C-alpha cells in the first residue's frame, strides 16, 4: 500500500460542502429531493 498523504474521504466532504455553499443548498435534508422534471413543470394552462 502506498501513501499519498491525502485523506480523500475528508477532502471529498469539504468539496461537497463547498459546492453546497456555492449553490446555496443544504448539505443534508430530511425530505427526499424532488426529481428534476423532464417534462414541463405545469400544464399549458
Amino acid at each position, binding site marked *: 500500500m502506498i501513501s499519498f498523504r491525502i485523506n480523500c474521504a475528508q477532502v471529498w466532504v469539504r468539496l461537497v460542502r463547498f459546492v453546497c455553499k456555492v449553490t446555496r443548498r443544504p448539505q443534508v435534508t430530511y425530505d427526499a429531493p*424532488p*426529481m428534476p*422534471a*423532464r*417534462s*414541463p*413543470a*405545469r*400544464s*399549458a*394552462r
Partner: protein
Amino acid sequence: MHARLGLRRAVAGSVSLVISVCLVVFGGHVGAHVVQNVLVPGLGLHEQSWWLAVAVFVAATASIVAWVQWGVDWVPVAIVVGSSVASGVLAEAGHEPAARWVASPAAHEFPLVVVVVTGIVWLRNAARRLPLVRTVLERRRRRHPEPLDALGAVDRSRTAAVLALAGDVERATVLATDPRIAARARRVGLIARARRGPDPFVRDHAAPRAALALAGVLDGDAIDRFREDASRAVAGVPASEPTWVRPLDATLAAVALTRIGETAAGDRWATVWHTNLALRNGHRPAGWWTPLGIRIATAPLWEHAAASALARAHGWHHPERPDADWQAIRRRLLGAAARGSAAVDDERAIAAGRLWLAFADDEQAARILSRPTVQHDPLAVALDRLAAHLADPRDHTDRKDLVA
C-alpha cells in the same frame, strides 16, 4: 366534415398563394414589403425602423399566444393586416426590395404559423425549466399554499368534471360553480367575440359546460344550448375556446353530452378522435383549429392519457386498435412514475395512466404506476379517484354508466 375541411384548406391555401403572387408580381416594391410582413410580422417595416419591426414582431407573437390560449383570433389578424398595410404604405418608392425569394414561401405562411405556434408552446414549456423561471413559479406556488387556490379556471372545470365521473358530485358541484370559471369565460367571450349576454357559456367553453352538466347543475335552457352548440360544431362537441378544440375538454364534453342523452355527439367526437386527432408518431395534438382543421403542437402526456382513457372507456377508440394509445404512451407514463409525483405534469400523468390500468392487462405497468402517491395536484387527485372508481369491482352501477 372531412371534405368540407379539406375544401376550406384548399381554398385558403389557393387564395393566399394567389394573393401573394399577385402582390409580388404586380405590387412591385410595395407588394414585396407587404408579403414580407405577412410572412414574418414586422419584417416589412425593418427598413423604416428596427424598433417598430421588433415591436410588431413581439406584439404578433404575443397575440398568437393569446389566440392559441383564449381563441382571440382577431388580434393577430389585426396586427398582421395592420402592419402589412403600414409596411406597404411606408415602403420607399424605387428602393430595391429585399430578396424576392422571401415572397415565394408566402403561400405557406399558415403552416409557418403552425410551426411558430408549436415553437412558442415548446419554448414556453422549456422556459419553465430554466432555473430563474422555476424560482419564480415556485414563489408563485408558495403564495398559493392551497393547491386548489393555485388551480386555473379551466383546470378547475376539468377537476370538477372528473370528480363528477368518479361519483363525488357534491365536490364537483362546488368546483364547477366557482365564480372564477364564469368570470374567465365572460372575459374570453368579450375579448374574442364581443359577447355580452347574461350567459357566459352560450358558446364554446367545453370544460366548464361539461363540468356543470356532469354535476347536474345545468338547467333546461342551458342543456338545450349545450346540445345545439354541439350539433353545430365541426367536432361534434363545443370548442374549448373560440375555434380551438382540446382533447380532454372535448372528451369530457362528449361524455357529458352522452349522459344527457345526446349520444350522436359521442359518435361524432369519436370520428374526429380517430381521424383528425388520430395518433401520429405516438402523439395526439394539443389543439385543433376548427376553421381549417389544423392540428397544433402535441398534447401533454397527462392530457393524452386522460382523454384517451376516457375515450376507451366509452368505446370511442379505434375499432381495430383499441389500445393503440396505451402502447404509444406506456413508456412515457412509466417514466413519469419513476420521476414521482413532485412535478404537476408527472403527477397528472401518473393518475391518468392509472385510468388506463382498467383496460390494459399490464402487471408491470400496474406495479410501477401504483407506487407514487398522488396527493398534491387537485386534478391529479381527481383522476386518481376516477381510476380507483373504474377499478373497484364492487361499484358496478357507476362503472356501467361510464364504461360502454
